[in-house]
């Protein structure tokens, strides 16, 4: 059993989550602010423009930023209440050291950094450089993502750095690279309203990317037809022209079945395929057996739905395909995405106005943070860490010998497994909460407790930071300056709205100080994040994700700049693949044939029900930030298990009963929400909660062989009516008068 330095109720009492409900200094005194700073929301890859109000150097509210073109003032509830994480009582304001008798005790910055550097050096000298690992996040700015990759490769010289984008964008990225040659949304969102048919696969847009809803509705006002694939009837699906309630993991059935019908009916652009693609024959050979009846069995839907989808998509004049985690979070996530992209390329409807394709990035900097070299197999500019020319370019920018740059390391899940096995002894973690967000939660928490030394940089004591030996208080997005890259590939500017509170520090300064203590200070002599961005531009120059021509001033003037942007006089590239020129060296798209295969764990006699997981609109990822904002917690206080009335009746369960959802790995007990809007063979749990409410207690530690993304979207469970939870954790439930 994992060990913590104090009981969970004690940790919660001291460090929260507590709920902040009132702006700094109260509602009544909130008059005209001292200043209003235009910046961006930190929650989700849409990166909406928002203005934060500052009074007496405290963020006290927000004002919509209608001039920013992507969202034109629109926000979701997370954006509206985002400022409530500022001036929060749970904020960490001093470094902490674990003390097994007393929990966490404050220590000063010098002692904390000295000890961290000493432990890193000890572990690396005894067990080798790769025995110390780094886990980072996709909500970091581009500057910080770049810095973390460089810190790992130059200061630590460990191969083992990976990031929580591994839980998010990697299936989509790998599929895009394989077929299209570039890992980025192919089109700006302004192409969406011009599409005549839009296919949304595995994306609960209303809750996970709410701003995109308006783009879909604009398209429909223009006459577009909407096809939605989802095991649940989401708010977007409710009014779709065609809703396909696909069984989780059955998407390839729909995509290949559609392509089969399109081929039979002549809705394939053979001229485009001949001129701009390779590999079509292999696709055609595979889809031959995906007749509607065969495809329907895989998809778990009537064959007529697949035919109707093909009839809408096939002959359309313009079209746009969007997908997200629903098809990506699978042990065949890359294949799911490739089958979807095949539908786009086969019609030639890409690289033109109103014609395109995009994955919907989930995390704040889901796009940018996967380009700057904090993935285990990547260097800045989306370069390949095993490519000699790529390594030489980066070695030159960093001023190091190419041979000193480590090669590819472990991705997030195998990295945690290596900790569990004792091969990795030390860990630095920033912007990641694996105790909540990785699958097979009990295994993950056990691994964290086995570390010899664990240092966490965070602004709140996350559930993962509770396992740390040293905690370094870092900065919120609005307390540092930098850039992110939004869902469209638009690089945008986050301004420093206020300074970090006394005792906390900007993350990049912490990293640079540590680099100095590890003897690499000369390579980390930045005076500001602008210096880091300028180095990032040079490092990315000539790469796929080329930022060389992007400056903070240009971003402000042009309301963002789309990469690739190789020079200052280059306008940026909102739409990729124009003229049928794809990202591969031969300029062509490379079709990939895709065969369906089952999930790592399908329902069986012992665990007969399919569990799928996802988000709710008022919470963000592992909830470290949003579970501390009262208004967002009130909106959806605790996870509910959605199930169809037919399943509920068979199990003797009524709405709001407590139910136990149990897999081979763990269980949760939550209330049931009995709704007709979900497939009767499937139950749904949102994943934002920790411990006894963590959906990831049940999920399976299986990963895609290419992208290494975990299979969050399907595992086998049994469900039964249960007694109300009791005990010290249940007493923390807000409904029981507690906090958490």
């Amino acid at each position, binding site marked *: 059993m994992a060990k913590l330095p104090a009981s969970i109720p004690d940790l919660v009492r001291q460090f929260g989550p507590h709920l902040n*409900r*009132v702006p700094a200094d109260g*509602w*009544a005194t*909130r*008059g005209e602010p001292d200043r209003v700073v235009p910046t961006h929301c930190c929650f989700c890859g849409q990166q909406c423009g928002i203005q934060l109000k500052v009074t007496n150097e405290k963020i006290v*509210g*927000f004002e*919509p930023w*209608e001039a920013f073109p992507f*969202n034109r*003032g*629109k*926000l*979701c*509830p997370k*954006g*509206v*209440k985002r400022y409530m994480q500022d001036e929060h009582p749970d904020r960490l304001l001093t470094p902490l050291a674990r003390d097994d008798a007393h929990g966490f005790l404050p220590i000063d910055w010098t002692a904390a950094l000295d000890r961290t550097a000493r432990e890193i050096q000890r572990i690396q000298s005894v067990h080798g450089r790769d025995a110390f690992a780094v886990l980072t996040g996709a909500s970091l700015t581009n500057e910080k993502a770049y810095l973390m990759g460089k810190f790992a490769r130059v200061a630590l010289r460990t191969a083992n750095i990976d990031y929580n984008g591994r839980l998010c964008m990697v299936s989509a990225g790998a599929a895009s690279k394989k077929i299209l040659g570039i890992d980025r949304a192919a089109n700006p969102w302004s192409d969406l309203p011009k599409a005549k048919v839009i296919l949304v696969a595995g994306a609960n847009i*209303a*809750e996970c990317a*709410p*701003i995109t*809803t*308006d783009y879909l*509705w*604009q398209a*429909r*006002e223009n006459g577009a037809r909407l096809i939605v694939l989802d095991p*649940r*009837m*989401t*708010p*977007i699906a*409710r*009014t779709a022209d065609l*809703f396909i*309630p696909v069984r989780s993991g059955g998407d390839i059935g729909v995509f290949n079945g559609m392509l089969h019908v399109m081929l039979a009916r002549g809705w394939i652009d053979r001229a485009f395929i001949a001129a701009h693609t390779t590999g079509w024959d292999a696709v055609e050979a595979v889809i031959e057996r995906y007749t509607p009846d065969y495809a329907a069995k895989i998809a*778990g*839907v*009537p064959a*007529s*739905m697949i035919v109707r989808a093909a009839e809408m998509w096939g002959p359309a004049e313009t079209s746009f395909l969007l997908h997200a985690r629903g098809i990506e979070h699978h042990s065949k996530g890359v294949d799911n995405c490739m089958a979807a992209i095949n539908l786009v390329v086969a019609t030639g409807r890409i690289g033109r106005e109103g014609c395109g394709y995009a994955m919907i990035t989930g995390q704040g900097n889901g796009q940018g943070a996967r380009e700057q070299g904090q993935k285990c197999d990547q260097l800045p500019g989306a370069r390949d860490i095993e490519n000699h020319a790529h390594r030489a370019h980066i070695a030159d920018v960093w001023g190091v010998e190419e041979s000193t740059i480590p090669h590819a390391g472990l991705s997030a899940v195998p990295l945690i497994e290596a900790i569990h096995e004792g091969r990795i002894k030390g860990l630095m973690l920033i912007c990641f909460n694996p105790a909540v967000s990785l699958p097979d939660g009990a295994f993950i928490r056990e691994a964290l407790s086995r570390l010899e030394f664990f240092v966490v940089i965070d602004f709140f004591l996350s559930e993962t930071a509770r396992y740390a030996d040293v905690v370094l208080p870092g900065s919120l997005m609005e307390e540092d300056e930098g850039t992110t890259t939004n869902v469209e590939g638009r690089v945008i500017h986050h301004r420093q709205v206020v300074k970090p509170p006394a005792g906390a520090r900007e993350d990049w300064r912490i990293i640079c100080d540590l680099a100095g203590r590890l003897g690499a200070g000369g390579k980390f002599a930045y005076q500001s994040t602008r210096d880091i961005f300028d180095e990032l531009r040079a490092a990315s120059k000539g790469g796929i994700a080329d930022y060389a021509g992007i400056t903070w001033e240009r971003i402000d003037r042009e309301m963002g700049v789309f990469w690739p942007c190789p020079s200052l006089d280059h306008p940026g590239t909102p739409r990729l693949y124009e003229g049928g020129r794809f990202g591969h060296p031969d300029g062509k798209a490379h079709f990939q044939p895709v065969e369906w295969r089952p999930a790592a764990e399908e329902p069986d006699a012992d665990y007969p029900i399919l569990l799928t997981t996802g988000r709710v*609109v*008022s919470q963000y990822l592992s909830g470290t930030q949003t579970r501390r904002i009262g*208004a*967002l917690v009130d*909106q959806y206080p605790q996870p509910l298990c959605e199930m*169809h*009335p*037919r399943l509920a009746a068979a199990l003797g369960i009524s*709405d709001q009963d407590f139910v136990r959802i149990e897999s081979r790995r763990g269980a949760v007990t939550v209330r049931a*929400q*009995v*709704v*007709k*809007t*979900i*497939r*009767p063979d499937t139950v749904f749990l949102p994943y934002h909660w920790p411990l006894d409410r963590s959906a990831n207690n049940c999920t399976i530690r299986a990963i895609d062989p290419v992208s290494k993304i975990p299979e969050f979207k399907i595992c086998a469970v049994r469900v039964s009516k249960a007694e109300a939870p009791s005990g010290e954790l249940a007493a923390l439930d807000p409904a029981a008068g507690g906090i958490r």
Partner: protein
Amino acid sequence: MSELAFFIDYSRCIGCQACVQACEECDTHRGRSLIHLETIERRDSVQTAPQVCMHCEDPICAQVCPADAIKQTADGVVQSSLKPRCIGCSNCVLACPFGVPKYDGAVDQMMKCDMCYDRTSTGRRPMCATVCPSGALAFSTVADIMRTRRGRMVNDWQFGEEHVRTKVFVLVPTEVTRVDASIIPLSALRRSAHAPADPYDVARLLEEV
């Protein structure tokens, strides 16, 4: 600002509550949300509907107020009750056909949506209609709405014998010229229904051939 009007398109609503959360943030509201988001019947559907004050031309809430506490501005915005006059009787709460006014015991008066008068009077749009990510709420010109939306905008309502005209428009299918919210007996509904009884039941969709 006079050419700008408030529009609701219920079909666009995704139930995200951005409007509810943003309403609290209006400086004069001080943490109190005055918009209602209705969940129609979660068991059967994810459909939701936002409800702002419709700002009736001849507001029923004001008609039934025994204390003459509910006033209309010159441009037709119906305001919350005047604190010195409101006696907390809740006549307005019971009378409003849209269910908008609520009696707030903490302040002992009726409070309701005032179309963000503090914002609109200074050239800004109401908080809810500015943030609404789906465009279910919009504060725009008639010309802009007619250019960008399908259907028809109406502000005529029939509640049984009661005819109401509102300052706020709703978007409805083109064939509708007035929203008829009269009571229909369930027996009549069952007899006349052509649509499936349960249009959002996923199990039923899976049985379709």
